[in-house]
């Protein structure tokens, strides 16, 4: 999904205006003209400048098309489903891990990911179990990262 040059320029320009407006309410250092808003405002000016440059260059080149060029994957339902699954699996981990613990959450993410990508079920199950234990042992035990624990798999810790 690629924006045309004119669209990109306009989006960048709008982004710059949004940053400038949002920075108007930031506090200054007492007794000074500078503060929390100085840097965002400088970024806003630069962003507006770049947006105008990209849009202006597109217009001067005769490119007046607005919108997005659709890539092949946008039209493929399966591809969209697989990419969506990758993002959903991260969200599932964030939501589930604090309640069910690292081990079952990681096992689910790995297994679902492999199955969606076309790994056969039995190898997917075996590899997911081994990978989960390897990651849990290296991060959780060796590097002492406090991964969320679960009572069911407490023997692993």
């Amino acid at each position: 999904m690629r924006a045309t040059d004119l669209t990109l320029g306009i989006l960048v320009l709008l982004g710059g205006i949004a940053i400038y407006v949002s920075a108007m309410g930031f506090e200054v250092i007492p007794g000074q003209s500078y503060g929390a808003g100085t840097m965002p405002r400088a970024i806003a000016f630069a962003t507006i400048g770049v947006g105008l440059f990209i849009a202006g260059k597109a217009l001067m080149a005769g490119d007046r098309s607005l919108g997005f060029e659709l890539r092949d994957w946008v039209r493929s339902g399966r591809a969209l489903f697989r990419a969506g699954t990758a993002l959903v699996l991260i969200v599932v981990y964030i939501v589930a891990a604090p309640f069910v613990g690292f081990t079952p959450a990681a096992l689910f993410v790995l297994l679902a990911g492999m199955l969606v990508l076309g790994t056969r079920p039995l190898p997917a199950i075996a590899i997911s179990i081994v990978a989960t234990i390897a990651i849990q042992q290296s991060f959780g035990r060796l590097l002492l990262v406090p991964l969320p624990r679960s009572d069911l798999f407490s023997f692993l810790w």
Partner: protein
Amino acid sequence: MGIYLEAAGLVFQPYVLAVIFCSAAFGMFVGAIPGLAATMATALLVPVTFFMDPVPAIAAIVTATAMAIFAGDIPGTLLRMPGTPASAAYVQDSYEMTKAGHPEAALGASLVFSALGGIFGTLVLITASPVLAEVALKFSSFEYFWLVVLGLSCAVFVSPGSPARGLVSLLIGLFAATIGIDNPAGAPRYTFGNVELYAGIQFIPAMIGLFAVSEVIRAFLARNETPKVANTRNASIFRQQFKNLVTYPVQAIRGSVLGTAIGALPGAGADIAAWISYAVSKKFSKTPKKFGTGHVEGLVEAGASNNGAMSGAWIPALVFGIPGDSITAIVIGVLYVKGINPGPTVFINDPQLIYAVFIVFLLANIIMLPLGWLAIKGAGTILSIPSRILMPIILMFCIVGSFAINNSPTGIIIMLVFGIIGFLMEENDIPIAPAILGLVLGPMLEQNFVTSMIKSQGSFLAFFERPIAAGLGIFTLVIWSIPLVLLLVNRGKSASVTPS
């Protein structure tokens, strides 16, 4: 001479050598895991060093750090997951080399020239540290401002594609760096009341998201189009490095010198050094168009610069007690715990200790070659795994690595958001690397800009009043004006050939 023998006596003991070997293996392990970097290796070692004498304690940290910085290149090269922002400078080239079936050449160059840069930096550390540290101490906020702007400019102009899109990427990174409470007024910005965001956007989860998660999304989208890459186990890692050394001697020396000099500047460190060296390499290259497409030249120069800067960062740390980066900041803390006060007096009170540290530096960079070889051989196994199995495992590493930074799910959320941003950026031909540097250097840029503006009472002329600041400023402005001049020249040429 006697002091060197005494220092050697402190290092060449079975216990110290065993500590060096174990910490080297540890540093290699931590650095090679995506999401974990040299700073984390150092931080994890600190509690262990409490039980050691000063020399083995410092030896453990020095060795683990040197190994972890190199090992950060392994996931970067094989999986496009740079371990450090410095590795991100040349990850495009090293990953393209992997896709072309030459991961061993990329990792070999990274290993050998990292070691050479590290050894050069150590020799400078030994011979010229007091002089360099004095120069660095003369830098004020004006010089640091221009140095940061120079580093950011390099990131824009070395990135593939148009500089305008590189600038968009940089501005995304700089904007992300404004999030949080770490600003001159100490006021929360763009936190939306979320306390976790007060600390700002941590760059490791952001980096994992931009580089790795975007790659995972692409692999999920087109599961049959993931390129098949060669395995490093059957290839010679060192074979091509002699040829590289003969072909690019100037690049190796220039990278080492520049890296060491920049590393010696307090607060600058390996990140800026690698980026500036990569830009310098591209600028003076006979084949600049090959950069970003799997060309080893920039890797040679930036790799040498990377580890040269690591040694250079110890110059202000040891001589004046001013940390050059986050790692030396931790080390200074360890030295204080051991009853040693870093600074000029340490050369008078404990000279044998300082020279022992120098010897450890040399040993660490030499031992890096065989251990790095082993690590590359082991890591190469990753490439033989089909992507339908590898990608979910990488996704899980990304999740755990992002969590491990602050032991909080916020890191995973940041990773997810930046993963989507990175994917959309690459879909629109906006390079990712400048955003990373903007995120890392944004706070430093803001601090030095606002401090300078307050000092100069709003006068921009003050940014050019000091000689070094003026030199850096003019150099930066020249870099920015070159594309505009070229644009005008090309327009003039095309207008003159257009038939009326």
